[in-house]
Structure formats: C-alpha cells, structure tokens
C-alpha cells in the first residue's frame, strides 16, 4: 500500500505510464491550447489504439451477422464474437462463457435482472436491500420494480467517512430480503466495499447478491467465484473498451431458471405464431443482432488490461490517489469526500469553499484539465451529505503524478479566481 508521504515521480513505481500513454491517441490532443489532462475516467475511459484497431479490422475484413450464417464471413464473425465472450468470462473468473450475457452497459445488466429475475421471483412483502451510495443505475431499476410488485426497499446507511454502516446486518438483512444489490466501489466516495463479507452476510440471510461492478471491474482484480456473488454488472466503456457494450455475469443455475427479458431473433429455439421456446445460455438473453464489433473491442480491452495485470492497475491507481489526496488537502477550503486512500479506488471527489463544482470544472477546463462536476448520477448520496453537487477527479492507468500537480495548481487558481 503506498503511503501518503511519498515524493512525486513521473510514473508510479508500478507502471511505465509514459510508454503506455503513446497507445492512447486522444491523450495527444490539446484542449484550449493546453495538453489534455484527462481526469474523468470514472465517467468513461479513453481507448488504446489496439481496441480501435480490433474493431476497425473486424469491419474491414470480417463483418457479417453472427450465429445464423453459413458463409465464411459469418462463421469468422461468430468465432471472433464468441471468443470475446470467453475472454471477458475469463477476466472476471467466471466458470464459463455462457454465464456472460452481453448488454448495452452496466445499467442494462441491472435492469435485466430486475425485469427477469425480479418479476419472476419477488412477491409483495419481499425486500431488496440497497445502499445509500448507489449510482442511479443500481437504484432506479429497483424503484420501478418495487412500484410494480409492492416489494420494499431498504438501504444500508453511510457513515460520515464514506463507508457503509453494517454493524446490525440482521436488521437490514431480514428473512424477507431476497436480494442485496450494492456497488463494489462508489463512483463518488471512492469507497471500496468489502464485497466478500457483504456477500457472506447476505447469503447467511438467504438473499442473493448483485454487485454493481461498473467501477470495480475496470480498476482491480475481480473474481466472481472467489467473491461467491450471484450477479455482476459492468460496462466496457469504463475499462478501455467501446461504448455500446456491457455485460451481466450471473450464476448458471440462476440464469437458466430466469425467463427471457427481450424477445426476438437469436434468443429462441423454436418460434410458432402463438408460442415459442427459448435458446440456451447465454443467447436466451440476447435478442436481435448483437453489438458484434463492440464485443470484439471489449475482448481487446480485456487483453490490454490483462497484459498490464489488474493488480498493477490497482496499485498504480492507489499510489496516484494517495498522492492526489495529500496534495489536494493542501488547497485552501477544499474538503474531500469519502475514506482514506487505503479504502478507496482511483478517484477523489471534493467541494471547494462555496465555489460551485461547475465553476471549478469550468475554470480547470480552460487549462485543459477535464474533471467532472455534478451529482455523478448519485443524487441520494449527495443529499446524504447535504450538498447539491461535487467535483470529481478520477484516475486510470494513463494518469501521472505530474497531472495531479497540474490539477492542484489549477485548483489554486480557481480559489484565487473566485475569491471576493
């Protein structure tokens, strides 16, 4: 674990960031005539050339619709498309590719579970446990389900330091609790939740576990079998992959027992005018022409991350984050949300006196520095802290401590600029 007292070096000790940045074309762009400092990867990451090339190559040499075609292009496309699924399955330690269902994004993955598993299994009086730190993606689908099925929602509260308060698990994990859905890492607080412990508690209470891995899968090793969870949702675009694709992983027995979500081509076995039977996993949940090029791009992204190693990715980000927290705390009036560096992933959200986060981001943008401002799709979390919005700098493999220095220098300017 990096300590907070280390001195700035151009790369972290874990990763040759400067070499790696050459792989990301966008990082050579200038913004307002300054080199781009991209600190918004928690919203969406940038893409290495290898990912773009994989998709371009696919379109230029192989594209055809998958599964149904007898001709060479279709067979080759099918092989590449399913190989990408196997790669992603492997990346998260799934038993087998058929447990990985392609979706548009993490959000759709969670909605799939709410629609299919939720409507088939929940009855009035059943309860779903969430936390107060959930992204809207892991909140709104359950609200919609709850309104339809008269299921009740409970929420694990958050302590002032940004960690979950679960000292009384039995009160929240009642005998009627059927699902505990929580994020592995908060996209605002940065908090890394103890997935294994939370899962064990849920299972003791007889509840299933859905993990929102949108922020964990891109940034640290995740092994679904070791964690012993039941569902995992994540998005390619936050982990060097393209937009338009994400995945739901689920345990085979659960997925097998679930009714389909959307209907159409590919998800069927036999169709008659008035009734149909369903295909096997994973295709039962994939209706219509899938995001073929995107799946292949996702596979290439996972290859890129695997070549670095997720342990290295995580350690690099923790080092950057510790450094950032130390430097940010020196900015006048700046207050960091969330726990200390040892309990958090690669992002820091903060408020700065009474300067509106939009203005912080606006001034930084004029210096080429991209951070996010707003409620980051976590309004209830901001309500919990009594603030309308916050500013967030988030890091990935391509960020350097030198960029943190630019951020901090920029914030000093912001303070100066808006002082009365």
């Amino acid at each position, binding site marked *: 674990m990096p300590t907070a007292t280390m001195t700035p070096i151009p790369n972290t000790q874990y990763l040759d960031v400067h070499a790696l940045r050459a792989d990301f074309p966008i990082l050579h762009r200038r913004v307002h005539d300054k080199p781009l400092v991209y600190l918004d990867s928690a919203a969406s990451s940038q893409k290495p050339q290898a990912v773009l090339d994989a998709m371009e190559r696919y379109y230029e040499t192989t594209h055809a619709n998958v599964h149904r075609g007898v001709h060479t292009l279709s067979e080759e496309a099918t092989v590449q498309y399913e190989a990408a699924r196997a790669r992603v399955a492997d990346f998260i330690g799934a038993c087998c590719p058929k447990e990985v269902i392609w979706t548009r994004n993490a959000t759709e993955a969670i909605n799939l579970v709410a629609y299919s598993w939720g409507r088939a299994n929940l009855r009035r009086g059943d309860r779903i446990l969430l936390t107060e730190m959930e992204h809207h993606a892991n909140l709104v689908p359950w609200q919609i389900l709850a309104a339809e099925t008269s299921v009740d929602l409970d929420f694990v509260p958050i302590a002032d330091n940004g960690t979950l308060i679960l000292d009384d698990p039995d009160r929240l994990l009642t005998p009627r609790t059927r699902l505990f859905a929580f994020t592995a890492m908060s996209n605002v607080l940065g908090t890394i939740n103890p997935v294994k412990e939370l899962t064990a508690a849920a299972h003791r209470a007889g509840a299933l576990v859905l993990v929102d891995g949108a922020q964990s899968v891109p940034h640290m090793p995740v092994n679904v079998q070791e964690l012993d969870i039941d569902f995992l949702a994540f998005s390619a675009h936050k982990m060097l992959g393209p937009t338009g694709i994400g995945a739901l992983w689920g345990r085979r027995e659960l997925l097998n027992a679930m009714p389909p979500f959307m209907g159409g081509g590919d998800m069927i076995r036999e169709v008659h005018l008035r009734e149909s039977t369903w295909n096997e996993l994973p295709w039962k949940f994939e209706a219509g022409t899938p995001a073929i090029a995107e799946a292949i791009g996702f596979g290439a992204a996972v290859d890129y991350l695997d070549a670095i190693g997720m342990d290295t990715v995580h350690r690099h980000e923790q080092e950057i984050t510790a450094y950032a927290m130390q430097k940010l705390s020196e900015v006048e009036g700046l207050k960091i949300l969330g726990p200390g560096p040892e309990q958090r992933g690669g992002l820091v959200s903060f408020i700065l006196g009474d300067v509106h986060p*939009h203005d912080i981001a*606006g*001034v930084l943008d*004029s210096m080429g520095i991209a951070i996010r401002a707003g409620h980051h799709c976590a309004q209830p979390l*901001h309500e919990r802290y009594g603030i*309308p919005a916050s500013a967030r700098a988030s890091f990935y493999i391509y960020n350097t401590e030198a960029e943190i220095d630019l951020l901090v220098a920029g914030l000093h300017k912001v303070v100066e*600029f*808006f002082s009365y």
Partner: protein
Amino acid sequence: MDLYAEEILDHYKHPRHFGHLDNPTLTYHDTNPFCGDEINLELRIEDDHVVDVAFTGQGCAISRAAASMMSEEIIGMSLDELKEWDKDNILDLLGIEVGPVRIKCALLPLKALKAAVWGLGEDDTVTR
C-alpha cells in the same frame, strides 16, 4: 477562460437585485436537478410592466450572472415584451459561447421568468 469573462465574474461576485422584494406580484421557484442549481425569482408588476425584481438561490457563476444580468435588463419591460424573450436574449446578455451542457445553467433564470409571466397570463390575473 472565455466562460468567465470579467463582466460575468463581476455579476457573480456582486449580483444585482439579489434578495427579496417586499411585496412581489409574481414569484417563481425553479431548479435544475442535474446541477443542483436553484432560483427563486420575484417580480413586482405594475400596469403590465416590471417595476422591480429580485432573486435568490444557489448556482454556478454562469447561472447567477445570468440571473443578475437579466434582472437589470427586464426592469421597465412589459409582460408582452418578456413573453417574446428567448434564449438568445440571455446569451446576448452573457456575451459568451455556452456549450450544450452548461446552457442549462445559463437558461435557468429565463425558465423561471417565462414560467412566471406565462403562468400569470394563463391565470388571467395580470396587472398588480
């Protein structure tokens, strides 16, 4: 740093007409939940004309400057004139380029103004 031109910063730091009116004819409250911005707009109308205005609320520099500049501008205008206003009037006042995301900030005061004057019209309770 175009977005934060001298004049905008001045209106942000020293907003005109910030506060409350004693006896507003119209008040309207609006929010932009995306940003957590809020505005409370109060108008004093006499003979179908704005004779005084005040606002409070929280928001970024753009939205506060827009509210401040708009307040200065609309005093003396008739309700009919205000009904003609659109986003170009605000952007002209601000005198900067506003992108597709921050436009929501810039236009919040206008949204409140339009709702206030049209709401009135619909109730047919115009004049004093």
